[in-house]
């Protein structure tokens, strides 16, 4: 009988770029569940900010390593084990989930499985890379401002950020609790849905796929590589998208997400900053210090933006149920790229990577990052977001299935690169 965990381990061991993926491995684990779930026997690894019994919960940070291991699984991990999944380890990430690049000076930069000279994206970096490399079919990540969707797009896999509050964050190291959501990255929509269901998301029936779909124009969809723009249009066409919409709140939502992330991250990790600053990466230190200078009034203004938007969920998308736009305006940048330019405007790579995702975190929307079926001219994947109004998790998953069945979307797995 074929052992899927042993097979996955053999694939892992064969990869030349595996050294930065796992922080703690537990390949010898077996499932004791008798569940008939589609997850039974499936090897899954989780981002290292999830508490996994017997493993360290480092959240990608050496500053958190005090030699202790988690006594218990967090509820999300426990739910997957109950469904029969085999947890094979914890995965590398941007330190404390603060970043979009996959750079980690302590545990090694996570590189893109399609091109080792390019970033994998982050902060769920190895969660995307290990699926994009064909080693595992599924992994867990967390998404604050795009940390599932960005690496999923750059590595060519499916990623799902469920509606805010639909999955327990207990036992997961927070970055910014107002925005953090756990979710899966997978090789196909079946697994995306099965894991979401196991985590407690209302994934509903898949038969009903009636929706008002619109493509976004203006911020944050403006300024993208031509191949990305063309892919978005083709996906929108398959979904029967109506007239484009422009949402005047997205820039303010992105700004509010930035402020809340800085404010909450600095307070969540204040002890590390005070007691072990030398063990944090320099950029993390700088971001946490900046966040300490964000006072309560700033945070209150950011919450006002969120509350105003959430008070009108029906009007949020100008009459549409689902918005289609790029997950990232570009394919994976080279590791040494610091700035990119679109339409004459220069952006830092980190800002450009998160531009299309962060506005929708603030409103708590469920979002699937869809891997387009064709690579760009450099052989790199393109990701497209299906953004639903809050609570429409089942709908965006059903639309993802439509795209997969059509053939216009498919994971771009690159085994043996």
């Amino acid at each position, binding site marked *: 009988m074929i052992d899927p965990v042993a097979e996955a381990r053999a694939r892992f061991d064969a990869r030349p770029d595996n050294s930065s993926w796992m922080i703690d491995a537990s390949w010898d684990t077996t499932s004791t569940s008798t569940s008939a779930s589609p997850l039974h026997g499936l090897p899954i690894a989780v981002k290292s900010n999830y508490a996994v019994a017997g493993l360290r919960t480092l959240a990608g940070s050496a500053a958190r390593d005090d030699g202790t291991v988690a006594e218990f699984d967090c509820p999300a991990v426990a739910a997957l084990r109950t469904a029969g999944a085999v947890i094979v380890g914890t995965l590398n990430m941007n330190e404390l989930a603060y970043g979009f690049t996959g750079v980690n000076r302590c545990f090694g930069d996570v590189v893109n499985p399609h091109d080792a000279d390019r970033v994998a994206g982050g902060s769920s970096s190895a969660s995307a890379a290990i699926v994009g490399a064909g080693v595992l079919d599924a992994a867990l990540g967390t998404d604050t401002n795009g940390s599932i969707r960005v690496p999923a797009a750059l590595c060519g896999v499916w990623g799902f950020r469920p509606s805010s509050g639909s999955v327990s964050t207990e036992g997961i190291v927070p970055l910014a609790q107002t925005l953090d959501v756990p979710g899966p990255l997978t090789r196909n929509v079946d697994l995306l849905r099965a894991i979401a269901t196991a985590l407690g998301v209302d994934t509903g029936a898949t038969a009903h796929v009636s929706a008002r779909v619109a493509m976004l124009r203006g911020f944050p969809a403006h300024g993208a590589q031509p191949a990305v723009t063309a892919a978005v249009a083709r996906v929108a066409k398959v979904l029967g998208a109506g007239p484009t919409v422009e949402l005047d709140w997205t820039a303010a939502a992105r700004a*509010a997400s930035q*402020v809340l992330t800085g404010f909450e991250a600095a307070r969540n990790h204040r002890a590390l900053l005070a007691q072990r600053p030398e063990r944090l990466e320099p*950029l993390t230190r700088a*971001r946490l*210090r900046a966040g300490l*200078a964000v006072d309560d009034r700033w945070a209150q203004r950011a919450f*006002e933006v969120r509350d105003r938007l959430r008070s009108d969920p029906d009007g949020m998308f100008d009459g549409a149920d689902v918005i289609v736009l790029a997950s990232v305006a570009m394919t994976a940048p080279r590791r040494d790229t610091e700035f990119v330019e679109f339409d004459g405007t220069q952006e830092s790579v980190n800002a450009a990577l998160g531009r299309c995702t962060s506005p929708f975190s603030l409103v708590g929307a469920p979002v699937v990052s869809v891997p387009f079926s064709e690579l760009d001219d450099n052989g790199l994947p393109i990701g497209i977001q299906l953004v639903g109004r809050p609570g429409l998790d089942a709908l965006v998953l059903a639309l993802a299935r439509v795209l997969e069945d059509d053939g216009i979307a498919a994971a771009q797995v690159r085994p043996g690169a």
Partner: protein
Amino acid sequence: VLAAASAAGMTIPADEIDVAAGQFNILAVARTAIDQWLGGSGDD
């Protein structure tokens, strides 16, 4: 940034002040964008 660190009982090495200030400036720009959308400054 220096004042906030001091209030929290922390110090910032001289060679790391500029980087922290740069990160703070990103948040300050975001605060401005929030005020523009909401109207007012929220400081009154």
